[in-house]
Structure formats: C-alpha cells, structure tokens
C-alpha cells in the first residue's frame, strides 16, 4: 500500500513546523528523509504515522485518509519508531519486542505461534537473540536502539517509519540495520527513514527527500538530491557526493560564509 503525504502543513503549539511538505512511499521503496535540524523530519514522520493531524493537506494510506482508518488496522499497517528511545519499566528485551504484537491482539505472555515467530524473526534480524532475557533498561544506548527497531519489525507492518534509527549505533550495526531494512523493503514493504548520515542515505536508499524549513525542496535519487548545489542551498555547506570503491560518500569541505549567521539553525553534514 502506498503512503502519501500531500502538501501537509503541521503546527506544534504555535510554530508551523511543516509548510506544505509532501512525500509518497510506494511498496518496495526505501526513502531517506534528510535536512538540517529543525527542518521538520520528525514532524513529517509523526504526521505520516497518524500521530499529528495536518492543518492543511492530507496523509493517505492506500488511498484512504489516515483519519478514516480504524486504530487497530492502522497499527497493523504502519510501524513507527520514535526518535526518543523510551522504555519506562525494566522489561526484558523479549517482552519489549513482544509489545509490537499488541496490534495483532497478542502481547507479552499471550503470544500465539505466529506472534512468537514474528518476535523471534525480529530478534534475529536485530542480532538480539542472546539478549532476549536481559532487561532493556540495562542495555547500552545502541543495544536499546536495536531492541526498539525489533519492536517495530515485530509489528509486521506494510510501512515502517523510522526516526534516526542509527543514532548511537556502531558502524557494524548501522550497516547491518540498513542492510536489513533494505531487504525488508525489497520484499515489497515501504521504508521511510529520517537520518543525518548522508553517506548512509546515499548508499542504501533509492530515493532521498530533502527538507528545508518545513518544505520538501528536493525529491529524487541520491545523485540528484545530494548535489553540491542542493547541499549548499539547504545545509549551507560546501560538500559533494563522491564514490570510493564504488560506494557513495558525501564529503563536507567547509561551512559557507553566508550560513554563519544562521548556524544555529543548520547542521553540519556528515562525512
């Protein structure tokens, strides 16, 4: 099913964070949402998950507006991984991942065969089988991040929206996670990932959506969107996309002079 945000305007409190942003994710696509801090990446993902109601524009899944979806059906169709990594009680890793089965009418302690299989698959995918009895609250930040991705995978939704899933992950697990997400997308699901690592985005995603000040200013394949012109216009940096051993890499040279005055609003790119 196709998840499509069309020209959405979203306000948080009094501030308009999105001003007519658009993003469409078709099955099989892996899309990166990039942009400076405060550009509206998280807000776009939260709106597409149905957590925020747009003031204008609409978000539709399979041609039906999210508001018209029944809660449970929406929870089985879209998995959303928040940026804030919260586990409020000392629950076991297995238990946290099993919470992903709640939309399917199961939960920790009441898993049927299909649910257990989904939990095991998610734990295996995130390389967590040996952690399953550990308490999620006693894991390192990166380990916890993988547990929460596993929770979202266990939901077995058609669409996965992940907000900076790789923040705090070591390079090996970053690669493993993106490789895994790309394979899931290739099975016919949609992946939308907000992230800051432009090189990772260029390498694993087949489309990149560039956000600036609440607008989606560019949308296309990595080579087109991560051009020096766009990077200068959006991030205020001098940078370019190069290839080393066939792998894409965004090299940032320096901050452009014109951007110094608004440095607080723009972030340096990634290497």
């Amino acid at each position: 099913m196709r998840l499509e945000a069309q020209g959405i305007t979203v306000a948080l409190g009094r501030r308009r964070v999105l001003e007519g942003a658009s993003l469409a994710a078709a099955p099989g696509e892996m899309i990166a949402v990039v942009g400076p801090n405060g550009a509206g990446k998280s807000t776009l993902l939260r709106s597409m998950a149905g957590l925020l109601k747009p003031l204008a524009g609409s978000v539709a899944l399979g041609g039906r507006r999210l508001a018209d979806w029944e809660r449970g059906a929406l929870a089985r169709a879209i998995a959303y991984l928040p940026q804030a990594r919260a586990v409020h009680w000392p629950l076991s890793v297995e238990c946290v991942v099993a919470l992903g089965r709640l939309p399917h009418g199961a939960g920790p302690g009441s898993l049927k065969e299909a649910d257990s299989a989904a939990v095991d698959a998610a734990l295996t995918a995130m390389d967590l089988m040996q952690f399953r009895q550990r308490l999620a609250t006693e894991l390192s930040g990166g380990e916890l991040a993988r547990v929460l991705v596993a929770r979202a995978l266990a939901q077995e939704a058609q669409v996965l929206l992940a907000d900076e899933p790789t923040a705090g992950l070591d390079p090996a697990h970053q690669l493993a996670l993106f490789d895994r997400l790309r394979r899931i997308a290739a099975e016919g699901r949609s992946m939308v990932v907000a992230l800051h690592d432009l090189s990772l985005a260029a390498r694993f995603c087949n489309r990149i959506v560039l956000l600036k000040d609440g607008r989606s200013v560019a949308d296309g394949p990595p080579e087109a969107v991560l051009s020096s012109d766009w990077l200068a216009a959006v991030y205020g940096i001098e940078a370019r996309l190069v290839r080393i051993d066939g792998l894409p890499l965004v090299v940032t040279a320096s901050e452009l002079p014109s951007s110094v005055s608004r440095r607080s609003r723009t972030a340096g790119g990634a290497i």
Partner: protein
Amino acid sequence: MLDRRWAVAWVAAIAALAFLVSLLIGPGGFGLPVGERAFGLVFWEIRLPRALLGALVGAALAMSGAALQGYLRNPLAEPGLLGVTGGASLGAVIAIHTGAAAAFAAALPVGGLAGAALAATAVLMLAGAHTGPLTLILAGVAMSSVAGALTALAVNLSPNPFASVEIVFWMLGSLSDRSLVHVWLAAPFIVTGLLVLSRTGVALDALALGEDAALNLGANLARVRLMVVIGSALAVGAATAVAGAIGFVGLIVPHMLRPLVGYLPSRLMTASALAGAALVLAADVTLRLLPSAIDIRLGVATAIIGAPFFLWLVLKTRRELLP
C-alpha cells in the same frame, strides 16, 4: 513467564485465605460463634460486611495505584494524587460537620461518594483535553489542596469538640462498625471501577514505550486517560467514602509485587487487586486481635507499614541511580 503466572495464582490464594481468616477471627475469638442466633448476627452483621469491605477497599486502592503508576509511568504515583481521596474525605467530613451523618447513617458514605464524584469531574475538566500526564497531575494536586483546605476548615469550625474528634477519627480510616449497607453502597462503584481499570491493561503496557510508540501500537491515549481517571475515581472514591482515607496501600502493593509478577502494568494490575485485598484484610485482622484498649485505626496501621517501606524505596532508588 510460567512461574510469573503462578505468582498471580499464589497471590489469589493468599487473598482468599485472608478473607477466610477475616471471617473467622474477631473479638469473640477464633472460629464462628455457636448458637444459631448469635451466629447469624455476628456473621451477617459484623464479620461478612467487614471482610467484604476489606477485600473491596484493598483491591480498589492497590489496583488504582498500579493503573496510575502505569499510566504516569511513575512508580511513586498513588491514588491520592488524583484528588479523589481528598474529595471523598471532604464530602464525608461535611456530612459529619452538618450533622447529617448523625441523623441517618448512610449520609456519611453518600457524602463521600458525592465528594469523590465532584472531585473527579473537576480534575478531568481542569486537566483538559491534552493527553499528557502532566496536566492531570497538576489538576489532581490542585484538587487535593482545595479539598485539604476545606477539610481543615470544617475541623476548625466544627460545632463541638465531639464533632472534630469524630472527623479526625473518621479520616484515619477504619472498617469497624460497618454494615451490609456500606457494602451495598460501595460495591457497585468499586466493582465498576475495577472493571474499567482492567480494560486499560493493554494500552498501559504499550505506554511503557512512551506515548508516540503507544499511539502507534493502536492505543487511544485520550480514552485511556479517561478510563484510568474514572476507574480510579469510582473505586477509590467509593472505598474512601466507606472506609476513610487509607494511605500507602495504592503505593506499596504494586512495588511489593513487581519482583514477583514483573513490571508489565496489565499483569501487575490484576495481581495488585488481589494483593491489596490481602494486605488490607491482614492489617484489619491484626488490629482486631489487639487488646480492645488499644484502638489503632486501619489507616494508621497501613501508614505504619507503608512509611518505612517508602523510606526503603527511596534508599533502593538512590542505590540504583548510583553508578
């Protein structure tokens, strides 16, 4: 997982045992009184209402505590936080103060119920439509302060010293001298409240991962909040209306159970209801066994058990926070 389910069964067995013991023990000694009339009188008029109320009140306080801790994701939350306990106390105190309670016995619990209902409505209106827990806590604290101030005013202005003593003693909480009328008054509200709370379990489990994740897992947070507040208000309001303010049960019972049944709110709530009943019944039976010259109120007993537990909790939390 299996042993944790057994833990719930064990707690249920202990609660059943405490209920039986409560029926069998009294100032008349162990066992049921012989002689058909004495038996009927003591059993139906004294022991059964007392045991039923003990079980209901304990279950109401502990399950509300577990639900609120789950909803607020704060292990220090307790039912009094909602302002409903204060509202019920104020209602009952007004009934004593105005002399209505002396005129007919049911006026006191009815006043308590009315106070709890008003307090819960006010808290829900104050907290507004926002789904976050912060406004709810603020509204609850504000309501508690208002109710506390007015209760103090009632004691201050009480028409005679007997009324003020009665108010103070009532507020200490007790199950003595309650009849089946009290049971009939409180039971429908408490049972309804517990049923409402038991339906929030799945959403409270999902909330363990934060509000956004819970919404994504299909939880209706606005509805859950309404159900937690209304369920707690019904259960705790009715419990306070018939038994007075009995503190610490809602706070400590979930803590005592977490090592046994785990931290998942849904499982903790059921176990808490059973363990709360067992704790209040046990405390009440213990007080009944004291010599009659030592009249310690139930709320005082739970506070004497609860306060050191709270201190231990502070030390434990401090230890866990240290690197």
